């Protein structure tokens, strides 16, 4: 047994960095805080790599399977004998893989930010928040129990809120951060309810107990049926709701495009590579339950994923803000991962989808971070987000151009880049289980290639735009991360995920199936070709197409009016038809009743005070009459 107890420092170090930078950074070393934050992250990156190496290559396998190790555990809050929130570190293939992903991307983003955020007001605040985020995200993936996951789930939510609203004086950023928080919070409500139901049925929060495929939680936790589905299924659907929110799946995706109001490195880290895949990670973490005890919930996962990926891809084709295109692309790719999980089975080759999903998560983190950081470099150079105001940038930004191209080719699934491998596994998994979803994903693959190259051609080729001042290549602090990530995007596909990260921890054989791979590459190339025709040179085809499909274009351009629907629900229903009436009711019914009681008392006392007239003889009369009546009563009537 190898000692992994040092892994507790992986999440703790960023927390200390956060407290240190947050409390003291502003006053004592505003300039140095970036370096300090980056160094701290570099240390935990190294730690993570060591952990990954030790876990995958030196730790003991039992029965050919990677074990789930609890490297550290302490009770944080005791509810009952069995239910308690622990804080701990759980190591298993997916958490170790996530460690690598998060620390790598986070380190790249840190280095990148040193250049990108240089001279910004609140530089030290930015790094403090980044540390907070890294802490929360690492805590999330290392969680030993579902409640710890929920805790860090909320914390990543709030760090995302803080980072989106980093430019807090910009109203749009404030709105976006608020929206992101509230939408995900609503989804988290589902997550929490799911946890409550799950814990009520299984009496445990612990992942190892919960996900043991032969344990009581899975075999007997089914519970009674409600509306035709078992309680377990309901709870897993609720839990998945949390994942839907965090991963920006339909219908909770609306916050993600707006979240691009945050600084670009944040978009790269949080809203592309790490936080948004938390939903996928959540499903993967609970996978045995989904797969064995709640297959219906898993089907929901698959369909939500598939629909989101198609939906987002369509919208991405029409957007002009490059970060929004990337955001929808993220949503679409996460849809892929969800779908892959949804069509997967448990164990051996059945678990191909699971492996593919994790594989794609890994490669996606690399190339999507690369895309965002590249986009950041572009924005840094031309000071605009809109691709209509760009063009011909390849001459000015050679490094960015090359890395961006690599990323686009990767996401389009062109061999031998990493995206090809992971996407192929997903398509293979889908093909084996559900032909309809498979067809949808083929279409999405084509769309993906199209909109990515639409972006690419519009930015780097297209019309020769005049700029206020000549755009220049970003500083090294920014280009080096780009190059490292590009390298990652190229080689990540060769990592043997089927040996390392599988549904039951055991390795299985999988190979490229040419029957699926060749058409998918062709579809990718087709998408690229169309984009080449339409956007390589400035021409009228896009406009013509837009006018031909006027209505569908308009719908897609306006994101199918989802924002408006939400706005209607929040502004009209919650504010106008619930809150205002509640407030009115409180003032005019409840409070008025209380005031009414007071008024009645007052009126009555004003009335009866007339009896106290000061007329001696009236009092005497009343007294005599009373005495007589009493006498009558006592002497004659009361016998």
């Amino acid at each position, binding site marked *: 047994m190898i000692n992994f107890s040092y892994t507790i420092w992986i999440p703790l170090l960023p927390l200390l960095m956060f407290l240190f930078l947050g409390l003291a950074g502003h006053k004592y070393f505003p300039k140095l805080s970036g370096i300090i934050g980056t160094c701290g992250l570099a240390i935990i990156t190294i730690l993570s790599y060591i952990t990954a190496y030790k876990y995958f290559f030196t730790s003991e396998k039992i029965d050919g399977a990677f074990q789930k190790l609890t490297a550290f555990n302490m009770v944080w809050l005791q509810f009952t004998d069995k239910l308690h929130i622990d804080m701990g570190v759980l190591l298993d293939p997916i958490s170790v893989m996530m460690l690598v992903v998060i620390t790598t991307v986070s380190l790249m983003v840190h280095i990148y930010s040193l250049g990108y955020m240089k001279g910004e007001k609140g530089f030290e605040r930015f790094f403090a928040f980044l540390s907070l985020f890294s802490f929360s995200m690492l805590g999330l993936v290392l969680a030993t129990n579902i409640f710890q996951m929920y805790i860090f789930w909320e914390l990543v939510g709030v760090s995302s809120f803080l980072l989106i609203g980093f430019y807090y004086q910009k109203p749009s950023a404030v709105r976006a951060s608020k929206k992101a928080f509230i939408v995900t919070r609503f989804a988290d409500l589902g997550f929490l309810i799911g946890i409550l139901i799950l814990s009520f049925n299984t009496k445990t929060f612990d992942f190892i107990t919960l996900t043991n495929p032969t344990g009581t939680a899975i075999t007997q936790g089914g519970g009674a049926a409600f509306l035709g589905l078992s309680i377990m299924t309901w709870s897993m659907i609720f839990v998945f709701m949390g994942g839907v929110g965090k991963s920006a799946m339909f219908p909770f995706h609306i916050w993600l495009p707006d979240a691009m109001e945050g600084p670009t490195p944040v978009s790269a880290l949080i809203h592309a590579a790490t936080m948004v895949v938390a939903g996928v990670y959540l499903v993967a973490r609970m996978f045995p339950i989904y797969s064995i005890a709640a297959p219906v919930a898993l089907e929901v996962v698959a369909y939500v994923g598939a629909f989101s990926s198609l939906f987002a891809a369509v919208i991405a084709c029409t957007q002009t803000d490059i970060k929004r295109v990337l955001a929808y692309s993220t949503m679409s790719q996460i849809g892929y991962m969800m779908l892959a999980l949804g069509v997967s089975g448990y164990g051996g080759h059945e678990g191909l989808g699971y492996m593919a999903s994790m594989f794609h998560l890994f490669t996606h983190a690399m190339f999507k971070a690369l895309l965002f950081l590249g986009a950041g470099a572009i924005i840094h150079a031309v000071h605009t987000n809109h691709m209509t105001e760009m063009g011909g940038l390849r001459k000015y930004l050679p490094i960015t151009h090359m890395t961006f191209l690599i990323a686009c080719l990767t996401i389009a699934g062109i061999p031998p880049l990493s995206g090809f491998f992971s996407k192929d596994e997903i398509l293979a998994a889908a093909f084996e289980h559900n032909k309809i979803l498979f067809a949808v994903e083929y279409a999405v693959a084509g769309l993906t290639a199209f909109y990515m190259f639409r972006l690419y051609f519009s930015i780097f080729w297209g019309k020769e735009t005049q700029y206020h001042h000549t755009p220049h290549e970003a500083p090294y602090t920014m280009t080096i991360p780009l190059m490292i990530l590009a390298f990652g995007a190229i080689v990540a596909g060769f990592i043997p995920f089927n040996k390392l990260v599988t549904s039951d921890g055991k390795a299985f054989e999988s190979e490229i199936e040419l029957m699926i791979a060749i058409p998918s590459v062709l579809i990718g190339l087709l998408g690229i070709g169309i984009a080449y025709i339409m956007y390589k040179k400035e021409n009228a085809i896009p406009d013509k197409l837009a006018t031909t499909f006027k209505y569908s274009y308009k719908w897609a351009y306006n994101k199918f009016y989802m924002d408006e629907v939400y706005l209607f629900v929040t502004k009209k229903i919650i504010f106008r038809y619930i809150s205002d009436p509640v407030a009115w009711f409180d003032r005019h019914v409840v409070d008025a009743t209380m005031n009414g009681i007071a008024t009645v008392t007052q009126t009555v006392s004003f009335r009866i005070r007339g009896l106290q007239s*000061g*007329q001696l*003889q009236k009092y005497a009369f009343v007294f005599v009459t009373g005495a007589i009546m009493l006498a009558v009563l006592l002497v004659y009537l009361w016998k």
Partner: protein
Amino acid sequence: MSSGIPLQYFLILATIMFFAGVYGFLTRRNLITILMSVELILNSVNINFLAFNRYLFPHKLEGMFFSIFVIAVAASEAAVAIAIIINIYRRFTTINVEDVNEMKY
């Protein structure tokens, strides 16, 4: 001296006197007449005390002493009451009981 007259006669007489006093107390407006009504009431009580004493408990003196004290109290009451009435007359220039209603509410 009282043989041949039943006790009830005295009591009825006292009752009439008492309620005459009550009537006066309720209807007269002049404070002094009200005072006189009170005197009537007290007097009727005295008659009762003495009659009871004589008829029912002739060997005791309680009734008589009570009457003595009642008379003493009545005397002091009359003195104080008249002082008050005079004072009221000075302040309000009237001794009409209905005009003296400062104590209302």
